[in-house]
């Protein structure tokens, strides 16, 4: 190849362009795979919190979602894993979850774990109801539940196009709907049992006392209570399953619509599994 002189105005000739492209292609070297993984884990552990957990969690990378659950339970002790919001060990449980989210590679495993976290938040809300927690405590749990559901849906970004929903996704959404309905029922019962206005949350302004009744009259963040579109998650209209039912927003039933991340009250300030703390 002859590289003829460049033009007067410093524009590269096509020969020079080819020369540079060839040189740079030959010079470019990929990072060894082992280093690439190790650095990823260190960077994300730093982003997610406690680096000391990374070594153990490396194992989880190649494991199934079930193994991730087991790893977590083993890592934080059964007591922490069973803890509920307000319990002393709950923070530890959350930290373990955050680090796990941070180190999981993208793909099915990460999506499965997001599902798992959403279900865990729903289960916590349910158990708080059973424990006789106050409406405020349940509301906060519902906020976390909603955020986790939103996040699990957002993690489906890389999944096949909507309409081509996997069986696992359908099962998840069905479980979430069931769980949300249970939480809603429990929450309604708690509200009815408490003196009017005692929650101070504004919940129950609808005739049924149900939060997030879809009318915009309350801001109580019931999972699946509808809401405006999210910049990062699927909008209610492109969500193939949750919220597609005829019950949507009729009575504020949890699970009757998709609650996006940006919905009022769905912020992560409640300590939901938002991935990690901001450094």
């Amino acid at each position, binding site marked *: 190849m002859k590289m003829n*002189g460049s033009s007067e105005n410093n524009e590269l000739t096509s020969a020079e362009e080819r020369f540079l492209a060839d040189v740079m292609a030959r010079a*470019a070297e990929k990072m060894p795979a082992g280093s690439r993984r190790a650095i990823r884990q260190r*960077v994300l552990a730093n982003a997610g919190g406690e680096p000391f957990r990374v070594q153990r969690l490396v194992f989880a990378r190649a494991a199934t979602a079930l193994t991730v659950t087991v790893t977590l339970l083993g890592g934080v002790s059964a007591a922490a894993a069973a803890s509920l919001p307000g319990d002393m060990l709950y923070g530890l449980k959350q930290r373990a979850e955050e680090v796990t989210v941070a180190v999981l590679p993208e793909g099915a495993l*990460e999506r499965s774990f997001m599902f798992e976290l959403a279900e865990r938040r729903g289960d916590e809300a349910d158990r708080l109801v059973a424990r006789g927690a106050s409406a405020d405590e349940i509301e906060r749990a519902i906020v976390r539940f909603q955020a986790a559901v939103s996040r699990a849906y957002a993690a489906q970004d890389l999944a096949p196009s909507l309409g081509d929903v996997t069986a696992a996704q359908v099962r998840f959404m069905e479980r979430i709907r069931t769980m949300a309905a249970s939480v809603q029922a429990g929450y309604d019962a708690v509200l009815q049992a408490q003196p009017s206005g005692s929650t101070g949350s504004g919940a129950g302004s609808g005739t049924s006392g149900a939060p997030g009744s879809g009318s915009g009259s309350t801001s109580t963040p019931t999972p699946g209570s509808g809401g405006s579109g999210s910049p990062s998650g699927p909008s209610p209209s492109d969500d193939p399953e949750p919220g597609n039912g005829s019950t949507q927003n009729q009575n504020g039933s949890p699970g009757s619509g998709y609650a996006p991340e940006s919905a009022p009250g769905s912020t992560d300030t409640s300590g939901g599994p938002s991935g990690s703390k901001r450094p």
Partner: protein
Amino acid sequence: MTAASDRHVERWIARARRGDAAAFGRLYDLYVDRVYAYARSRVRSVQDAEDLTEIAFMKAWEAIGSYDDRGLPFTAWLFRIARNAVIDRHRKSEREPEAVDLAAAATIPDVVAVEEEVLGLLDGETIREALRELTEEQASVITMRFIWDMSLKDVAESLGKSEGAVKAMQHRAVRSLAALLGRKSDEDER
């Protein structure tokens, strides 16, 4: 490099800005080869290049919360961080990469004859050695243009230069590289 649509990348950036480490992990997967290739072209050892890559992503995470997508394009922003890491490393080690003698490069005739076969004979490390002899800015420009596939405009923004200045640096880089590679080829033959 992971194939990802612009839409996905924008979402990952938005999520990472809100503190989502998993989304940042996806950005890492997408850009790590580019950052590493740049670092590798500026330092001799693989270990140093890996350290610089790690530092660049650590710093990117620290800063991404304040990243404004209405300002620098993300690639230009990330390259700037990687470049600063390299500059800091050289400054700390007081081991500035040897820059090619620009005066000597200027004497190279406009018609630079670097036969294709010559390039073919040179291995990757020899070519990287030549790249390390470019000035820091020249190396940055051609890395951004030809490894990171950035437009002239984005390169100019990342460096805080005009597009004309970037073109001039690119032009000097090609002449310097041709001279350096020709010289290395001659050395190999001896």
